[in-house]
């Protein structure tokens, strides 16, 4: 099935051709963690994930057409 992947800021370098958004094909039943592994984002890099602009768990399973967003952790204020 096809999903959309968006990489934000420093994570963009883990996207094909460093694109910020692209279509990606995964098997049915793929969860968010699996997508992050397929992207080769190092485990030591801290980031959060959204599916369709809502926070998700690594275990959340994606559906066809879903958009998954990876964004780096930033704190401050």
């Amino acid at each position, binding site marked *: 099935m096809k999903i959309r992947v968006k990489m934000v800021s420093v994570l963009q370098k883990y996207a094909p051709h460093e694109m910020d958004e692209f279509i990606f094909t995964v098997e049915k039943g793929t969860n968010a963690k699996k997508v992050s592994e397929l992207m080769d984002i190092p485990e*030591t890099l*801290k980031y959060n994930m959204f599916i369709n602009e809502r*926070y998700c768990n690594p275990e959340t399973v994606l559906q066809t057409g879903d958009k998954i967003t990876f964004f780096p*952790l*930033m*704190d*401050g*204020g």
Partner: protein
Amino acid sequence: MHGWKGKILRVDLNTRSMNEEKLNPDIAKDTIGGRGLGIYYMNKELDPLCKPLSPENMMIMAAGPLTGTGAPTGARYMVMTKSPLTGAVTCSNSGGYFPTELKKAGYDAIIVTGKADKPVYLWINHGQFELRDAGHLWGKTTHETTDLLTAETDTKARVACIGPAGENLVRFAAIMNDKDRAAGRSGVGAVMGSKNLKAIVVRGKEKIALADPDKFKAFNHDILKAFKESIKEAPLGLTVNGTAGVVLTTNLLGVLPTKNWQQGTFDNWENIHGETLTKKYLVSNKACYACPIGCGRKTKVEEPGFQGEGEGPEYETIYAMGSNCMIDNLAAIAKANFLCNEFGLDTITMGATVACAMELFEKGFLSEKEVGQPLNWGDGDALVELTRQTALCKGFGERLAQGSFRLADSVGHPELAMVSKKQEFPGYDPRGAQAMGLAYATSPIGGSHMRGDPAYFELFGIPQPMDPLVWKGKAKPTKSFQDLSAIIDAAGLCIFFAVRNLADKSLEVKPTGILAYLNAATGADYTLEELMAAGERIINAERQFLVKAGFARKDDTLPSRLTKEPTPTGPAKGSVCHLEEMLDEYYQVRGWSQDGIPSEKKLTELELGGKASQ
């Protein structure tokens, strides 16, 4: 004593008398220091009903037992007093180098009462202290004051002072130390100004003795090693872009307050983002004492009309003066920030008050004649000009100097002030970060992120993520984070390091690393339970003060915009903050009545004695 210096300096400006007092070791342990010590003395000696700008009010500057020890980010102190902005207790915190110098000069805290008959400054030099005439400094900016004072005392001395805003009793005047670090919030600078105290200058050479130096060193080594490991793959965002890097996250999550909190996303966010700041204006990073992060920004702006040099802007300044005013000109924001530092003003309240005025102007509740100029969204020139007028209490600035609540109330629209307990919020819209709304409403000092910041869970996922849009079950983690913040503030640490590296990775954020540092430094043998109880004790002691000053559930509020108007854009679209539901849960978790009054049982359990009744 170890960690603590064991001495407090008392200054009575009415009689110009000063004396040293021993710090009781039991009180030191129970209160930890800093914020805990401050509220202990306020509850003991200050009438909660006193007028904040009267001589009766006390101003306490208190460092923590880890301040100056070399523990990472052990650089901080608290300024505590009754606030002229909120009428509640306030504890405003700052880093830099002044707090460490205060410890090296021999003191854990300075307690100032009374009012000098004319401007003075306090000069503390290796355990010697004197009040000196400050007539020649009155009217000077914080930078000028600092330069003049180091020239006339000791070039290595550290200075905390007020600028013209504090002298003019602007309700949100700051106390600036080391020129650009601010104990910014709630008008602590106005209290100092009301006492005719222009500055405190310190110089010291004493060592801060540690109970178990070997253990301290070994633990420090491990912590710093783990920290370095954690940033191997990518440096910390805080180091690269400062706190301003958070613009990306908050805009993405739809919680970047925009147009006086009418929306949570800002189309031009990239123009005010930390990366833009780094590219266009960064001169170098700046770190507080013993800090491995260095989130401070030394910046320089050359655009005509906005030229200047200094530190900042931080994320909170960028939200308040930027998206919140629809200003996407980072040069204008930086310039207004420089002016705030030099005049001694809180950037959050300054920006948020201008944003509120812009909405009042748009809706016709303020006229061009009253403001003295048009005040449209996005006008960076107006922001800079009004910042100047506010500090000097000139023109429309005299009304802005009262903060957004009093301004909006004066034209019959208090609901347009984005405040809790009359203090403006930091930059996280609680419609898209529910626990933040609870933290704002229950913060003892009014709208604040530093007195409890569950945005760490909800927006940054540190140390564990929580769904920001869910309100159920948020009371407990909010309480845990508030208690942790109290411990961080009392110990003299910075939240940016401590939350990531010195607390456990659960939603309880147990202060395991702080415990190890505290015990090695002080030898006080805290158990984890004792330390956590000490954090809870601080929150309850502050609440006792608030209750006696007349505060209750009726004051733990948010503006109706946040609880009734659904946010119109971004991932949080359609949601409001469920404050009342969370409050019910929160008071229960705290062991307070449903009116927000600590129960006798809770106070007895925390050895705070007495009732908290009004």
